[in-house]
């Protein structure tokens, strides 16, 4: 008997826990050349902003050991184009849409949430809190739990009540558990983590920073142990809050690692660049791993690594 892969993110049920990570899959269209996007749990879109945004100049990336450094700067066409072109396409293919939003302040976040709530078919809204808070000299919302909470509150109030709101956290914060708690307090139905880790590469030929933005974000398998630690720690503190775990997932076993740490769903980011079919491959490997363990329901495994030895399966 194949395991029951269904997972819940707040009030929403997904057919399986494997999804794309924001900014690593567009809105699904390019990946549909390689697999049927309806087969995975959900497509998390590139963070959408109100207006078109050009982002950072090139070079925008550098390869790093088992990872990459990137500084894209939230390039995108804005919410209008997203609602006219990208979202309908994804829904027409039977894909589940988790829409990531990025704003410069509460008003923008609320407006984005409102616009998405008018459109049919948005399953979850993910709040990218690593965008610059214009009211605070461009510091990120995650730098200040109060600012993060305000952004979450804005999205929650702007969004239809049946759409779960997930707050996406960066690991580069003074107190991750405190930040997570503040977001939940402010109405987040769940948490997504982690965003990229702050980093830098210097091109030894030019002797300059390798990406035009100077600093960038590290992603990929290199950061997986950092991400697993974040998920584990936040799940320990807030065991009832669903988590979308991510950071360097490359195989089904990696996805399982996140579930054991406490994630209800798992997103695949940078590894998509390596393998455009990664999500379906990982889903298959994940299902096989569950079978080998004789697990009936993936939900039984969420946070299993926290349980005392021998009770991992909670049976």
């Amino acid at each position, binding site marked *: 008997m194949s395991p029951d892969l269904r997972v819940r993110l707040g009030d929403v049920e997904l057919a399986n826990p494997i999804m794309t990570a924001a900014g690593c899959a567009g809105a699904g269209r390019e990946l549909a050349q390689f697999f049927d996007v309806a087969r995975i749990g959900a497509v998390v879109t590139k963070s959408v902003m109100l207006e*078109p945004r050009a*982002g950072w100049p090139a*070079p925008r990336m550098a390869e790093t050991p*088992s990872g*990459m450094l*990137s500084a*894209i700067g939230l*390039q995108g066409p804005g919410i209008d184009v997203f609602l006219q072109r990208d979202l309908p396409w994804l829904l027409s293919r039977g894909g589940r849409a988790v829409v990531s939003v990025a704003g410069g302040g509460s008003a923008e976040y609320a407006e984005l949430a409102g616009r998405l709530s008018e459109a049919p078919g948005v399953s979850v809204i993910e709040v990218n809190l690593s965008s*610059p808070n214009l009211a605070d000299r461009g510091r990120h919302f995650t730098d200040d739990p109060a600012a993060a909470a305000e952004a979450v509150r804005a999205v929650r109030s702007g969004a239809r009540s049946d759409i779960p709101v997930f707050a996406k956290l*960066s690991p580069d914060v003074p107190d991750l558990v405190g930040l997570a708690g503040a977001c939940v307090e402010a109405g987040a139905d769940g948490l997504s983590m982690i965003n990229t880790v702050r980093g830098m590469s210097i091109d030894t030929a030019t002797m300059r920073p390798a990406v035009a933005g100077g600093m960038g974000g590290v992603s990929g398998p290199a950061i997986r142990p950092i991400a697993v630690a974040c998920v584990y720690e936040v799940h320990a503190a807030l065991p009832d809050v669903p988590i979308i775990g991510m950071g360097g997932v490359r195989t089904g076993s990696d996805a399982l690692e996140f579930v054991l740490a406490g994630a209800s769903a798992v997103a695949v980011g940078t590894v998509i660049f390596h393998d455009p079919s990664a999500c379906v491959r990982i889903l298959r490997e994940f299902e096989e791993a569950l079978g080998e363990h004789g697990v009936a329901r993936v939900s039984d495994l969420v946070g299993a690594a926290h349980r005392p030895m021998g009770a991992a399966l909670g049976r």
Partner: protein
Amino acid sequence: MSDFRPVQMRSPVLTVRRVDAYHAITVVAPGVAERFRSGQFIAVAVGGDQSGMLLRRAFAIHDVKPDYGGTVEFLFAVRGGGTAWLAERRSRDLLDIVGPLGRPFPLPRDPVNCVLVGGGYGSAPLFPLAHTLRGRGCRVDFVLGAASADRVFSAITARRVAETATFTTDDGSFGVRGRVTDALPQVIEDARSDVVYACGPMPMLREVSAMAMRHDIPVQVSVEETMACGTGVCMTCVVPVVGEDGITRMVRSCVDGPVFRGERVRFDDVGTIPFDALGAPGWKARGGDDPVSAREAG
């Protein structure tokens, strides 16, 4: 050819050859070969299953043959870890490739005179293009340049395929000393070229485009920007390009390119966000809209 979608496959290596300063690898990849059109490229995973090198390497397709259901050849110079690993492949090894990727060279409807300008390994995609153009009755002239003789590409093939083939090297070790742009105007005039195709480093493409514009003939350039995915999802490979509507956008060179109309690429602004580009800071006044901070994740 109804299906233009790229495919991903584990392709057996047929041969690995040294060609002067380059390595040429031929893989058996029927799905790629049958979909291929000149100017497209493949993205190759490097380093094996547990590789620390996560990103695929992009290579122009240099040749496609019907053998074994369809083979694909690409040429490369060893540069860093990825190309060093590729150079060590042997026949029967498997390569994980995705392709064909990108917008191909648009082809003229009529049998016009075409000059093909290549710099270094940028010459690679011009060879299948030359064959296709010849097949359509076009005149083909080559202008190929490189740093030195061992980096000039397939001179013999070029001479065979084209009406004329002009070679330039920086050090004068082969053909004319100088750059392709030194030789190009004369070739355009002698051959009464109607269109220019070019592939090579950005500064070369900029000059070639400027020349074509001065001669008032269309120019198609294939650009090279660092690419993380090659499939259009990562947004790392952008260049500023002016659209039909006159608006400059940061477009993805992997799916909207790598081939662009030369006069539309804002070569002088490569590596910047032009102030008038769609979504540039201050592009549409919303009051205090700051450039995205350096800690930006995506």
